[in-house]
């Protein structure tokens, strides 16, 4: 038995070595660049990320998965950073994805993450590996901007001292402020602010609070919720006693925003008496499904951009092409996923002479006046988009409806 074991061990080793040789010698002259995306593909963010991945694939198909006149082959891997058990993104899973990307030398572009908290984990790993990240959805300011997040941010995320992270959406310091100004325009005088204690939610609620106060809106109270609680009846009773005319929730659908709205309505705060506003984290169909269409009616949501159906020029063309191809409405971030891939391909095409992580990273950062579906935009030195256009939405007849452009 022992002999058999050692024999099979040796055999396996030989096979492994042979297999390894095979791949190395088997490579042709064609260079391969792998683009990976790391998004929550399980859980209730799936509705959003499905349309992002669709948009990424759509863009790659347009160029037939090739760049540099066919000399470079593009491969795409759709990684999941969520687990079914959590129903949302998971720290370990995100680190696993980033490490897998870092160790595969073909991976030169990392599209992701979806959640800002996940970006905190992925950026340092990929920074050490020198891989460029293009996020279609992260909005936490501290990832790129000094003084807008916690102390030491953003330097802590870039151990090598150089930047490797870019994002196509405007950060929350702009979105929170836009929400604060919008609340003023809507005639709000007394607002109760909630957050889900997460990086994204708390950050945006802080900015909202500061802007609202500056606009002369009274802050009736501020609380952080336990996003795993089964109900918020006691909390909503407490809030109702302060007579607010709006509740602002800094958080996402997955941190129980639906239950909040349900219990808010049950506590007698109907849509005509008390408004409910949230950031783009609740700007999705899953939120309406979770809250129930009747309860969600009248809820306001801001979004760091304009909805796909309101895009103009190239964007409108893309919107129609998407609908024709997938026979479905793209969710809010699909256009950002498309333009992320767009700038990635443009950077690869500019790096034909030396295809490596360093050149591609340099060329992504050099994106200026890029003519994408979102309009003419580029990245600044810290990796932030030059786009600043925001929009406000409201749920009417069970669906989000575009109300106005915000500044």
């Amino acid at each position, binding site marked *: 038995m022992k002999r058999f074991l050692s024999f099979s061990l040796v055999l396996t080793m030989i096979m492994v070595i042979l297999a390894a040789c095979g791949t190395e010698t088997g490579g042709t002259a064609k260079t391969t660049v792998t683009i990976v995306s790391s998004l929550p593909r399980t859980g209730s963010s799936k509705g959003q990320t499905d349309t992002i991945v669709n948009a990424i694939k759509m863009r790659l198909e347009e160029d037939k998965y090739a760049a540099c006149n066919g000399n470079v082959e593009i491969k795409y891997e759709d990684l999941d950073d969520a687990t079914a058990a959590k129903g949302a993104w998971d720290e370990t899973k995100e680190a696993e994805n980033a490490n897998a990307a870092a160790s595969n030398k073909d991976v030169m572009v990392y599209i992701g993450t979806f959640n800002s908290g996940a970006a905190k984990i992925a950026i340092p790993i990929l920074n050490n590996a020198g891989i460029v990240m293009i996020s279609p959805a992260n909005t936490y300011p501290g990832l790129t901007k000094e003084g807008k997040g916690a102390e030491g941010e953003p330097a802590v995320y870039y151990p090598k001292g150089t930047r490797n992270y870019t994002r196509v959406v405007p950060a929350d310091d702009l979105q929170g402020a836009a929400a604060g100004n919008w609340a003023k325009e809507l005639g709000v005088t007394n607002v109760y602010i909630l957050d889900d204690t997460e990086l994204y939610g708390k950050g945006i609620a802080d900015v909202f609070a500061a802007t609202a106060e500056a606009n002369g809106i009274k802050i009736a109270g501020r609380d952080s919720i336990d996003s795993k609680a*089964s109900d918020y009846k*006691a909390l909503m009773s407490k809030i109702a006693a302060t007579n607010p005319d709006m509740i602002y929730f800094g958080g996402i659908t997955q941190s129980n925003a639906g239950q909040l709205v349900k219990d808010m309505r049950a506590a007698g705060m109907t849509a005509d008496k008390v408004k409910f506003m949230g950031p783009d984290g609740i700007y999705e169909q899953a939120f309406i499904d979770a809250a129930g269409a009747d309860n969600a009616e009248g809820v306001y949501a801001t979004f760091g951009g304009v909805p796909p159906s309101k895009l103009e020029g190239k964007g409108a063309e893309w919107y129609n092409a998407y609908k024709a191809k997938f026979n479905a409405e793209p969710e809010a971030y699909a256009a950002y996923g498309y333009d992320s891939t767009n700038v990635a391909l443009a950077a690869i095409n500019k790096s034909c002479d030396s295809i490596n992580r360093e050149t591609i990273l340099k060329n992504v950062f050099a994106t200026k006046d890029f003519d994408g579906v979102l309009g003419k935009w580029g990245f600044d030195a810290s990796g932030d988009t030059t786009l600043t256009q925001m929009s406000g939405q409201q749920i009417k007849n069970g669906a989000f409806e575009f109300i106005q452009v915000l500044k």
Partner: protein
Amino acid sequence: MAASQTPSSPQAAPLVPREPFLTKRRAFSIVGLIIFLGFFAIPIYQTILLEMWDSPRQLTQQIVIGLTKGTYIAVIALGYTLVYGILELINFAHGDLFMIGAFLSLIFISLFGLDPKTSSGITIFFSLLGILGLVMLCTAFLNAGIERFAYRPLRNAPRLAPLISAIGMSFVLQNVGIFLGDGLIWDKIADGLGSDAIGRVADAMGTQSVAPKNIPDLLPNGQVFFIPDSLKYTYKDLLVAVVSLGLLAGLYSFVRFTKLGKAIRATAQDRDAARLMGINADRTISVTFLIGGALGGAAGMIVGLYNGTALFSMGFTAGLLSFTAAVLGGIGNILGSALGGLLIGLILALSDQYIGTRWSNAVIFAILVLILLFRPTGLLGQEGGQKA
């Protein structure tokens, strides 16, 4: 059977204790707790007390909310206590059984096509009553089945084995919940059978199996007529409290006064002695699991309708609270669990109001630790009957 309980028996921890409620030791520990709270807690929480004094209406409102929540926590806690009392097993799967109860009620509601806008009140009332029976039946047999196949073969194994088995069952049930919540599967079944009713289930589940499901608001939302308008108390709240208390009272009298209840108590006290007296222990344990399962399913339906949400992970959260309630009240003791549940509901609501929602869980466990310091067996737990 009662004669078999001797003070010297270290095993004695009957589901319904025979000693008077207020013993000397109990009185001492309660006084100790009050002194502790008086001397240490009051200076710290002075502002909170002032706030309570300021708005008695809000205080009453939160007490009402807390007690309502407490009643359903108590019903779930009973499931833990029953099983612990008879098998000394912490049945981790019980919380998930509760979740299955919520999903089953959503499925039946969709199958029957109940809609608060179109169905008449009487239809809704009788359908819900029927659904409650169906759900309780399903979860009862599910629970008994779990006992038969996951716990009984391990009856004489070391104590950790059935515990691990229970944790395993908890995961299995969670995945059943994810499966039941997958609208795409329901869609395929509906297409295959050409059934509108199953199509409605598919719609209710949506396309995301792990996303929260919305349960239609079928319970009456009007203000209860004899409560002044300043205090919000709807028929929904009343119904939840009445049904939960009814279940509690029913279970208590069942275990206390019926022959089968006596057999359950005897098996809980000493399984081998009960066998010698001619009690079929296996059957008694099966009955206990049937009852526990029915209670879990009923709680699932009550909570599902009350909060309007079914989610595959709701069993874990509720299970943690209820298990804590059972330990707080004295696990293995029916009245203790009920008391623990009410207390936890109350603490949660008051902490949400006066301390802050994010601290509520910390407050509950701090109070649990405090009470266990003075009474290691829980508020109404038996002295010396500590079983791990």
